[in-house]
């Protein structure tokens, strides 16, 4: 985290979209996260890497509080999103889900039309003057699909069901349907692992398009992807953060021998 000098000049004080403090998490008696302190900067793409079971997905899932659905999860510490502790008892879970969108390994479009998929969460949150995209439904659909570079492929079949799309298109749609409610953070849990290289490339391209408008935190097993598609990189091991820095620095001059070993494929 010693990269303040490299921050863009128009943004002298880097803001943190996600900030965890002494985050400890247990699945039953198994401790999955140990004192995780992370400051993830607003508007950047941050990747999380590390061997299976290192806690990166667990951390991701505690940023929109879907871990607690499991019932046997215990959490200590705090996670701030846009300077508010989302584990505060006064926090409305529905708002957390609106502000922090999540994309999963397997694309999970709803079995309704492409158009309805895009409008689904907008309809949930638009009533009562929530901060959502303005415009007619058609405009919102077009705008969201354009943002994920999907509009040209699907504009003639918006009423077809979304599950008919290719996996790559489904995954883009799953990203697109988060956008109409103006989330602050997009969490992606290995979003490309079900996709072929071409689909992966397309989704990475899309990440760069969304960069700046949203803070993106992406968990990946693909080292090359972390290197290509992120600006900052977090390396985790056994539930602890080992290293967090600019992606090129983490990859070229890692500060910790564990990071270097993992990156070079000596374990993982």
């Amino acid at each position, binding site marked *: 985290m010693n990269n303040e000098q490299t921050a863009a000049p128009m943004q002298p004080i880097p803001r943190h979209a996600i900030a965890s403090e002494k985050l400890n998490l247990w699945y039953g008696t198994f401790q999955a996260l140990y004192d995780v302190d992370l400051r993830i900067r607003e508007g950047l793409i941050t990747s999380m890497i590390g061997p299976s079971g290192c806690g990166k997905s667990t951390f991701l899932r505690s940023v*929109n509080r*879907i871990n607690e*659905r499991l*019932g046997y999860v215990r959490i200590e510490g705090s996670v701030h999103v846009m300077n508010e502790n989302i584990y505060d008892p006064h926090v409305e*879970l*529905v*708002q*957390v*889900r*609106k502000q922090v*969108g*999540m994309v999963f390994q*397997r694309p*999970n*479009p*709803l*079995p*309704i*039309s492409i158009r*309805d998929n895009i409008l*689904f*969460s907008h309809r*949930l*949150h638009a009533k009562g003057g929530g901060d959502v995209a303005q415009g007619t439904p058609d405009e919102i659909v077009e705008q969201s699909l354009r943002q994920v570079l999907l509009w040209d492929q699907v504009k003639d079949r918006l*009423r077809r*069901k*979304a*599950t008919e799309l290719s996996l790559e298109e489904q995954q883009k749609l*799953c990203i697109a*349907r*988060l956008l109409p*409610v103006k989330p602050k953070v997009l969490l992606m849990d290995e979003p490309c692992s079900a996709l072929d290289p071409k689909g992966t490339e397309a989704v990475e391209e899309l990440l760069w398009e969304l960069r700046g408008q949203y803070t993106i935190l992406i968990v990946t097993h693909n080292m090359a992807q972390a290197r290509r598609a992120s600006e900052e990189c977090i390396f985790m091991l056994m539930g602890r953060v080992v290293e967090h820095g600019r992606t090129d620095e983490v990859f070229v001059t890692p500060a910790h021998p564990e990071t270097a070993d993992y990156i070079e494929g000596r374990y993982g």
Partner: protein
Amino acid sequence: MNTANPALFQASDLNRHNARVQRRYRLLFGLMTLLLITPVLLILGTLLAKGGSAISWEFLFSAPTDGMRTGGVFPALLGTIWLVTVALLLSVPIGIFAAIYLSEYAGDNWFTRIINLAIINLAGVPSIVHALFGLGAFVLFFKFGTSILAASLTLAVMTMPVVIVATRESLQAVPPAFREACWNMGATRWQTIRRVVLPNSITGILTGVILEVSRTAGETAPIMFTGAVFFTPFLPQSVFDQTMALSLHLFVTATQVPGIAEQVPFGVALVLIALVLTMNSVSIAFRMWLRGKKKW
């Protein structure tokens, strides 16, 4: 190697043996299927042959006369429609709502497991026991008397487990990924149920309801003590009236009336089956309409 090997793609003894075994099993399964539909065809055939001549507009739309020996089945037909409708109005909403609770809201703990066990056991209780329960609970304790209401409540209690089990199974057939996708977008449980789970399971739920229609219309024991009578000169005006019913009428004409023409009970049975099939086809049509309306 360029020596020709003529045996490369020839059937071996093992292949032939396996093929023979496979044919034997196909034959077995086919015969069982045939065995399954034979009684259905026999029943329908016998009913049509022996009871078909009894069917006429007069038979359908007039009251029995001369101690059931002549006249028609109209009061019983109407009574069965009353009983089935009221029973469905009571059991379908309760059953579906309870199933939604058990499947979508309740956690998996000892309490819900006991409830599930109770539902399965309830489905296995003999109908005559339900009849006595209905007599004790609805006729005597709640003082509904022998009435359509008491009989329909008894039928509802008896058939509710079928609705619950069928509904829960079709709810659980909806992939969990759909629910999670909804929750992760900030949908409440109810929004998820309303917009994703129910539209995807409604056809299965209707199948449960269809099953229940057939069962309800045919039951005799539970209504015998609670609301159905051998004969009444009046048509039911409200749920507090007693009524005749086709199933009981069939029992009466088949066993209790000396010197009755053979075609009368067969005709009654035919009307009962036709009624059930009509009600079923309405639900099936509704189901197909829903499926056609689905966008996915």
